[in-house]
């Protein structure tokens, strides 16, 4: 809502200064979106064009002499519509026009020019409001030398309110005046409209067949003469952001701004009957609105009819067939209240949201429906020569009684933490112009219909606090003791983030919504991803199944910006309609040890990434994770360099090398990816709680090299040894792998470090020899391995 301060001054009895008012609004009422003069132009004067001749050296410029009251100036003017005898707006030497445009004496093609004759655009009045090309011509009675902004009523300031949806009451100057009066402890100075009616009775009969019409008031005004509105009305409409059209349309808009009540004027002679029937569109499926467009209606859209056919789309737009035009003499004026939700649905669907539809949506004051009708009739008489027929046609179903809300003083104290005095609260209600009773510590406040947002004691508390000031509220902390803590899950999430970043990975956060092919790119079995009903773009249309494609996107982005070694991780979710699964995912490429002045580089390979995950598992107390060759690998991973991670019987994730096709497609060197399920990790976490005895006798290490078929996995060898080595074999570690010269083709040599430990005694050499012999036998049986000779 854009509020003209000059207009507001007519509606309240207190002094208003712009900056002070802005501050009050911010702290007590509504946020201020903007504040400024209607025109910031300075040093303007009304000029009388005495002479106007073509510029000797130009085919479009004119040289004029202009009487500006104190002197006569020669001014070169480029506007084609300049002519001798006109009253015009002159920016004098030293004037500053909007856009910091300074007016100086100058020579234009050799001719001296001492100022500028202005268009309304040059005063900062947006072209859409006046649609004039060229300079603005003032009425003849304008006095040379006087202030043209005053002449045009543009000597005004405008405050723009950013309204929250509950404050529909502030979509009217009257509503704003009420709030300003409350803020500044003043009174409103509204004047009731005076309508002088003709003897002839208003013949129109109004009815409604729909619950979406709450009330409908109609007047007939005869003998209007369509003309331009006076300058003051035009200026106020422009200040409010509405384009002046003609006096009839302008009056309906002006009264809407004043009262908040949207009005519509039909050309009475084009309405075929004396009946107004409001109903659902039903079988009327097409309607031509006054902008000439054919609108397709839904059966539930609300229409105004003449009892036969629709003449307006209720609250949204009038019809072309009954539009007020230059020839209109008689008017049927509508002031009605329609259901806001209905209006909103129709106006949104047809993309016809307007000043009127917004007001219906936010809620109207039922007490102003008739008032607006009368006010418009008054202005039709005053500004358009209209005569109102006797009586108002009425359909009314609204409750006009104030709503009584109880607020005990004790309640406001217990809610706010401040003990308000009864007198303080009484002052607030008085300032708001709310009637009230007070007895036994309880206020009964009679909230007028203009404030439909105030319905409960909580609403009253808000009114009391904002009008008396939020600064009165003390600053305390809720004293009750609560056990604040993070859950183990929340701690684990942090541990993962901190560990992975300590291990050299950068954390990223990427979008959950992705393109359909991206969402499922990492799926083994491609299930369709959850899709939005109304995505904004295809790129953000479905919920992802994996974080890996997004991480690869970030990887590519950074590689294109010369980052060579990139390792990223993210904690995020995979989505389906049945569950949201938290994932811990990473992508790594380049060197895990960057090249330095010492010349050492160490590119990532499977085992470097596996090492990182092992460190993560250690931090999380996740033990015994097994790396299993998966039966199937999706198209994004290298089938020979991918492992499924299993803890116990539960799959916890996957680690693998990006498929060479994928890497070359994305122009990446060897890249490794992992994706783990957070819940599975957490389930596998088994922190040791009870101390284990530290061995008192020395451990003995024996190294073995065995030769096995190439296909035998190291894990199988370790498993066989661990099983056979109980109880003294305490650790098995692979420390070398060799294939090639000296080893039979198709075989490999694996070197193992065996650690033996007995908690009860020192192991004798003979015992260990015997154990190793036993282990070799088991190994030969389980894996076909033989001691390397």
């Amino acid at each position, binding site marked *: 809502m854009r509020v003209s301060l000059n207009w507001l001054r007519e509606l309240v009895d207190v002094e208003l200064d712009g900056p002070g008012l802005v501050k009050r609004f*911010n*702290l*007590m009422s*509504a*946020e201020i979106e903007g504040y400024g003069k209607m025109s910031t132009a300075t040093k303007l004067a009304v000029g009388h064009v005495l002479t106007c001749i073509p510029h000797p050296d130009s085919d479009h410029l004119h040289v004029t002499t202009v009487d500006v009251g104190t002197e006569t100036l020669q001014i070169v003017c480029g506007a084609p519509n300049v002519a001798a005898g006109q009253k015009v707006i002159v920016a004098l030497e030293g004037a500053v026009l909007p856009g910091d445009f300074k007016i100086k004496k100058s020579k234009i093609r050799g001719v001296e020019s001492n100022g500028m004759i202005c268009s309304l655009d040059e005063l900062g009045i947006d072209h859409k409001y006046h649609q004039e090309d060229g300079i603005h011509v003032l009425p003849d009675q304008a006095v040379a030398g006087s202030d043209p902004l005053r002449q045009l009523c543009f000597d005004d300031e405008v405050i723009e309110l950013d309204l*929250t*949806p*509950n404050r529909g009451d502030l979509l009217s100057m009257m509503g704003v005046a009420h709030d300003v009066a409350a803020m500044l402890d003043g009174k409103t100075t509204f004047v009731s409209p005076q309508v002088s009616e003709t003897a002839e009775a208003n013949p129109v009969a109004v009815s409604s067949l729909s619950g979406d019409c709450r009330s409908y008031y109609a007047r007939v005004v005869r003998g209007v003469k369509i003309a331009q509105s006076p300058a003051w009305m035009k200026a106020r409409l422009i200040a409010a952001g509405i384009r002046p059209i003609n006096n009839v349309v302008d009056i309906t808009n002006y009264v809407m701004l004043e009262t908040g009540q949207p009005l519509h004027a039909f050309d009475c002679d084009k309405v075929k009957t004396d009946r107004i029937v409001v109903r659902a569109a039903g079988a009327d499926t097409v309607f031509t609105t006054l902008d000439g467009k054919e609108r397709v209606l839904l059966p539930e859209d609300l229409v105004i009819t003449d009892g036969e056919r629709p003449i307006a789309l209720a609250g949204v737009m009038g019809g072309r067939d009954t539009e007020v035009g230059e020839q209109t003499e008689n008017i049927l004026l509508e002031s009605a209240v329609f259901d806001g939700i209905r209006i909103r649905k129709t106006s*949104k669907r047809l993309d016809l949201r307007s000043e009127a539809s917004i007001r219906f949506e936010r809620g109207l004051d039922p007490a102003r429906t008739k008032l607006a009708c009368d006010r418009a009739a008054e202005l039709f008489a005053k500004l358009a020569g209209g005569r109102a027929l006797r009586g108002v046609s009425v359909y009314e179903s609204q409750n006009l009684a104030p709503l009584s809300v109880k607020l005990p003083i004790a309640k406001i104290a*217990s*809610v706010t*933490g*401040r003990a308000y005095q009864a007198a303080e609260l009484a002052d607030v209600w008085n300032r708001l112009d709310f009637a009230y009773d007070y007895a036994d510590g309880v206020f009964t406040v009679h909230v007028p219909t203009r404030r439909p947002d105030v319905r*409960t004691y*909580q*609403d009253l508390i*808000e009114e009391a*606090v904002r009008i008396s000031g*939020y*600064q009165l*509220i*003390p*600053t*305390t*902390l*809720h004293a*009750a*003791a609560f*056990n*604040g*803590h*993070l859950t183990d899950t*929340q701690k684990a999430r942090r541990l993962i983030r*901190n560990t992975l*970043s*300590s291990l*050299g990975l*950068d*954390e*990223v*956060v*990427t*979008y*959950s*919504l992705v393109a359909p092919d991206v969402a499922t790119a990492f799926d083994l079995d491609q299930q369709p991803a*959850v*899709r*939005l*009903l*109304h995505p904004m773009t295809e790129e953000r249309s479905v919920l992802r199944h994996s974080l890996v494609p997004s991480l690869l996107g970030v990887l590519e*982005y*950074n590689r294109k910006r010369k980052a060579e070694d990139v*390792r*990223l991780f993210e904690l995020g979710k995979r*989505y389906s309609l049945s569950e*949201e699964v938290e994932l811990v995912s990473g992508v790594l490429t380049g060197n895990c*040890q*960057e090249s*330095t002045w*010492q010349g050492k580089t160490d590119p990532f390979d499977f085992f470097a990434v596996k090492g990182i995950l092992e460190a993560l598992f250690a931090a999380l107390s996740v033990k015994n994770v097994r790396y299993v060759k998966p039966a199937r690998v999706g198209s994004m991973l290298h089938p020979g360099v991918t492992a499924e991670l299993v803890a116990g019987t539960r799959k916890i994730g996957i680690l693998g090398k990006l498929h060479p096709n994928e890497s070359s497609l994305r122009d990446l060197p060897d890249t490794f990816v992992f994706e783990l399920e957070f819940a599975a990790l957490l389930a596998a976490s088994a922190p040791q709680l009870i101390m284990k005895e530290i061995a008192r006798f020395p451990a003995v290490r024996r190294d073995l090299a065995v030769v096995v078929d190439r296909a035998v996995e190291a894990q199988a060898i370790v498993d066989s040894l661990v099983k056979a080595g109980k109880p003294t074999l305490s650790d098995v570690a692979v420390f070398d792998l060799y294939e090639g010269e000296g080893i039979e083709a198709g075989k490999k040599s694996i070197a193992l470090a065996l650690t033996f430990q007995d908690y009860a005694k020192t192991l004798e050499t003979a015992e260990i020899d015997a154990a190793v012999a036993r282990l070799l036998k088991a190994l030969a049986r389980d894996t076909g391995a033989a001691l390397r000779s």
Partner: protein
Amino acid sequence: MEIQLQLAALCAEAAAALAGVASMNELSDLKAKYLGKKGPFAEFMTQMKALPNEEKPRFGALVNESKNNVNALFEARREALEAAEVAKKLEGEAIDVTLPGRNVKSGVRHLLTRTIDEIEDLFVGMGYTVKEGPEIEQDLYNFEMLNLPKAHPARDMQDSFYISEELLLRTHTSPVQVRTLLEAGGRKPVKIICPGKVYRRDDDDMTHSHQFMQVEALVVDTDVTLADLKGTLLVLARKMFGEDRQIRLRPSFFPFTEPSVEVDVTCHKCNGKGCPMCKGSGWIEILGAGMVNNAVLEATGYDPKVYQGFALGMGVERIAILKHGIDDIRNFYVNDLRFNRQFR
């Protein structure tokens, strides 16, 4: 006393010879010469045999004393030579300590998750627990139970990412509050914060993001007041923006709170004097808050005659943007490492 003079001369001679010794080899040669089996001291000992028995002990003592003295001179010289040798070796091992250290890579946490941790820690310290919930949420929890009935303008299908009539991507973390209140069954007090991802149907630009992070707080008990909310907001503002900050509350509107307020904090750049950061006002809007609307309490099974509460909600990006002078919200989701790595 000729012997004493001879011994003194010998000691002086050995000391002079030692002064010229520069290596361990020379030292051992010289040592053999003076202290060896054929050296002058051995010679004196053979002379001793010729002396009368009563003079032998004194003579022997004199010779031994001198010999020990010379030996000590040799030891001292040896230690000096060794020290010089070690020093020389260490000098050869000297390095340029200004060369860069071997790179042990450490990554960085994302600024958003770090900011959330910081906010969580603050609230956990004040007795809050952290609650999470699904991002695909029921309309019932996201809107309806929060006093946003189906036709409410603030919940337009066009403003939210709906998946079906009843499911949508949550537009705030408030549904977690609803779920928590329902769980508590209308009897227990609740003191929680709800961090997480939320989604709105906004075009991505410098100040808007279709996905962003929120932290909301909710306290419901029999005695929670607007003053408690104000106190909590002050603690929060000071923790996030500095100990000198002041706050102010302005009227606002959210369907789920009444009264509702916007919270401004004095600008941390200009300390409230007015600068481009705060658009000259000295105040920066940081979040919205209010007293829980009775309609929400009723919908979740709490009796508003007994229970009341406050709620507040902040955009994590906004907090981070203000705190770190970030100019474009999209930075958080582009993940240009030159941006991410600035915030260690």
